[in-house]
């Protein structure tokens, strides 16, 4: 199962241009692939980082209050919103991209960072609402009640009680939103047409598009693009477990 990951790292450390025979072990590691990758894709990596961080902030700002409202209030129409969230996850990305391209073209949002942040948040927002709602459902109502008795309004209670208590759910939702956005390829492919704003996923795709004769720099870029996933797996184990099971079935 993990061989392809090993192979990616191994190949990224081979000397440039060694296309015909790649040895099974990087016995004499060569970092020129990384040098090329950073020189040619560094800007795209930075773009991906900005878009992913922006999408995390935007998604949490939209999703956290909604999750709170769905978990706590008996809002008329809450069922409709939940239903819409479930259905929204089944709409093919190409359908969204098709419509957004024409709308973005009119609004001048093509090839822009805000445009990508908005579109990419469509991966994270439904997921974040579901996972935070599941968490907030289990939060004792007595805590909010106590805050209300002390005279806190809804906004106060939400900001200084609910959010701090939901820290774990916020982190889980934030991490996955980051990863979804970082990995996005479809919106990068359809909503950017110049190299002014170009996420690294599209950079890799274009590397592959031409006849590839320098696999070590492609693989080095691939390794660099995998770093968020690897960090997430090592540093945030318990959040990953919560995210995979929580978002999938509930």
């Amino acid at each position, binding site marked *: 199962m993990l061989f*392809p990951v090993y192979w990616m790292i191994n190949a990224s450390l081979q000397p440039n241009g060694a296309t015909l025979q790649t040895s099974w072990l990087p016995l004499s590691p060569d970092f020129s692939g990384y040098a090329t990758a950073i020189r040619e894709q560094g800007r795209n990596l930075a773009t991906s980082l900005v878009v992913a961080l922006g999408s995390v902030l935007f998604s949490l700002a939209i999703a956290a209050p909604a999750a709170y409202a769905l978990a706590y209030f008996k809002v008329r129409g809450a069922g409709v919103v939940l239903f819409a969230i479930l259905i929204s996850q089944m709409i093919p990305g190409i359908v969204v991209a098709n419509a957004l391209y024409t709308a973005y073209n009119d609004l001048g949002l093509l090839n822009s960072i805000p445009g990508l942040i908005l579109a990419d948040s469509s991966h994270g927002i439904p997921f974040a609402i579901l996972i935070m709602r599941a968490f907030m459902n289990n939060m004792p109502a007595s805590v909010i009640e106590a805050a209300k008795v002390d005279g806190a309004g809804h906004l106060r209670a939400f900001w200084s009680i609910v959010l701090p208590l939901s820290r774990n759910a916020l982190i889980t939702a934030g991490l996955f939103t980051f990863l979804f956005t970082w990995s996005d390829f479809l919106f990068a492919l359809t909503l950017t047409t110049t190299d002014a704003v170009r996420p690294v996923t599209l950079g890799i*795709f274009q590397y592959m598009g031409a006849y590839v004769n320098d696999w070590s720099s492609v693989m080095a870029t691939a390794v660099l693009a995998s770093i968020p996933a690897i960090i997430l797996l090592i540093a945030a184990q318990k959040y990953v477990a919560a995210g995979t099971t929580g978002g*999938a079935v509930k």
Partner: protein
Amino acid sequence: MSTTVERVSHRAAEAIPGPTGARRLGYRRRERVYQWLFLLPAAAYLVLFFGYPVVKNVLMSFQDYSTSTFYTGEAPWVGFANYASVLSSSLFSTSLINTALFTAGSIAGQFVLGLGLAVFFKQRFPLNGILRSLLLLPWLLPLIVSSAVWRWILDKDSGALNNFLESLGLISTGIPWLTSTSLALAAVVGVNIWIGIPFNVTVLYGGLQDIPDELYEAAALDGATGWRAFRHVTWPMLRPVVSVVLVLGVVYTLKVLDIILGLTNGGPANSTQTIATQSYALSFQDFKFGEGAAMGNVLVLISLVFAVLYLRVNRRAVDE
């Protein structure tokens, strides 16, 4: 939970000194305003980024929407012409069959291997937890990264797979995994199975954990162990989770685009073209947005059937 909150707000309303009917009404109205303030941004986002595209796609599929539309702003209505040309093209049946094969093959492989691994990980052994989380890696990597790596592994002349097979003496010349019309689809399915296994393992493992040990103990007393225990205890207890995994898997696999574009770009000779990649090609390579939208709507219709199935299954799973 929500009923508790309702009760809480009642109590809070009564706590206001000397509440009159009118004041309580004002309080409740203010409550409602707050509730909607919390929900409104998300509702607006869902409408703009999911509702609008769906409606817009339906409209576009009845229009002659092309590059010139962007200059002139005119997109004449053409009725069902887009659907007619999309559905009657010889490529449509190819894409439809490929989509069915891609989806069925991916789901079957992911599920069987995922279930096997989930059962395996249910045993206690050292490093269980670490191995299980390492297994998640293929699922967390950007899809385009996975396709780049696999494209290199499956390369005809210098790929690791052919090198390995040659060193074993099993083949003498490289197999064109991704560049032959007869193998490409199978290769793409294989890669997609690899990507989907972690999801299946994680969810099925969670389902297995929820089966109480007493059931196995009771079954063992009746003489059911091993395969019989799996058939009579594990499988029936796991069924709700299985249905959810399968239906979600189908819905996600139907719309896969990244992997196919990264590995083969739909080729060679359209042998890996699916409805999703075809919709992309029509809109963004041929700039026939109307036809692309029509193709996209076909995909939405197919997904919708499974979405309804999912909601029914999910409701039953929650009720039980």
